[in-house]
């Protein structure tokens, strides 16, 4: 079975390389952040930061609980931006420096 292409709304096709970040659950996004080198997190952050206001303005044309598939993917990229933002802005690390061991910290949803 082939994987369907990663659909994004018109004008956002250039974000298709972020398809692996379009993860539906927080624990999945967090797991991906923990296992991604900081340089890559920085690249994701730098790509999305200037786009967030445009993305939210676009998404706010739709009911948030019933987004069309391309908009749903774009929403997940906005949430991925939030996930990587502390790593880039504050922690300068995928994990929390000097923090509790991630394998012992359970993110339930």
């Amino acid at each position, binding site marked *: 079975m082939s994987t369907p292409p990663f659909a994004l709304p018109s004008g956002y096709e250039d974000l298709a390389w972020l398809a692996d970040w379009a993860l539906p659950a*927080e624990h999945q996004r*967090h797991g991906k952040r923990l296992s991604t080198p900081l340089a890559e997190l920085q690249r994701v952050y730098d790509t999305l*930061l200037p786009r*967030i*206001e445009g*993305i*939210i303005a676009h*998404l*706010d044309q*739709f009911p*948030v609980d019933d*987004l069309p598939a391309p908009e749903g993917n774009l*929403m997940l990229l*906005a*949430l991925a*931006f*939030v*996930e990587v*933002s*502390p790593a880039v*802005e*504050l*922690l300068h690390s995928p*994990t*929390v*420096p*000097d*923090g*509790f061991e*991630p394998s*012992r*910290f*359970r*993110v*339930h*949803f």
Partner: protein
Amino acid sequence: MTKPDASFHTQITTAVPDMGSGPLPVEPYISPEFFEQEREKVFRRAWLEVAREDELPNPGDYVVREIEVLRTSVLLVRGRDGQVRGFHNVCTHRGMAVSICDTGNAQGFICNFHGWTFDLDGRLKGVPGETYFADFDRADYGLRPVATDIWNGFIFVHWEPQPQVGLREFLGGMGTQLDDYPFQRFNHIARYSARVKANWKTFIDAFHEAYHVMMVHRHTVPDACAGQDNPYGLLSSARIYGPHHSGSVWVNPGHKPTPSETLAWKYGMSFAPGDMVDLPGLNPDNSPNWWFDINVLFPNFFIDVGPGWYFTYNFWPVAVDESTWEMNIYQLDAESAGQKFAQEHTKVLLRDILYEDLSTLEFAQKAMASGVLKHLPISEMEIAVRHQLHTVQEWVGRP
């Protein structure tokens, strides 16, 4: 070295019991004997929060909570009459659990050992081979009830079948402060948990003062509640209500937001310091620089309330040097993509902050157990730490 600025003090707006000002003994944090006293005289005598009513919206919905300190498993179930009841999750025949699932919806409960069946209200409905039991009356063998009551959607249980003090009376002024907070308008957005080799009080004590923020949270929110006017992060105000206490965390008006924080506040409400939102039950002393309130319901439940979000902690003793912790975050319903973005910011920032909070506990517990420290000097900034131990000692000292 600059002279400490002693001009900022926490305004305590209730009567304060005589708790002394000396160092705290280490013994209650490491003594197995003291821990057994706590089990009997604190945890078996207090109302304990175990779930939100929203977890059981429909008749037949149930959740099971393992309460290790009580050495029992509690089954909470909503009956056909809409009432939430608590039972020991124990078949009255030979002690098998009547529910081996943590959560679900059921018409009744069937014990997997010999097939005894119980109704949602606990009545024993069926016993295979009943005629072979001599002098047997089903009415004697319903599920054993656990005293259960609900305040503001929070379900509490009590070990004693008929508690001497009702739930609302037990909550006292702490309940009054939060009675009108609109908990029912909030949605559950996150749950985190961990098991840590630390005494339950060591664990709790890391969460009800803000003196630690500039150091423990140096990577996440170092300037959020300490600044020029309040360099050491004193609480702006505090309240003591019998065994419970409440502190308002000062916010630094000079806090510098990150780009993602600024975006979150543009669309909704983040945990990061931002605008004040007027909800009943918040900021009870009208502190001009207010971030959020830390409300500690004795012995082990926190409800921290802020502008547009609240979160809870349950700290559960397992052994004298082991505890579990669960955090649940709730936020006003996200009605737009922007609000959903802000919600995500609240939980992601809080989660990363919690990695920091959990980082000190096992070091502190080991050091106390080693015998290196015999007592702990506790400052005015950590009044809640003093009050928690004071209350525990008072309860343990009761007959």
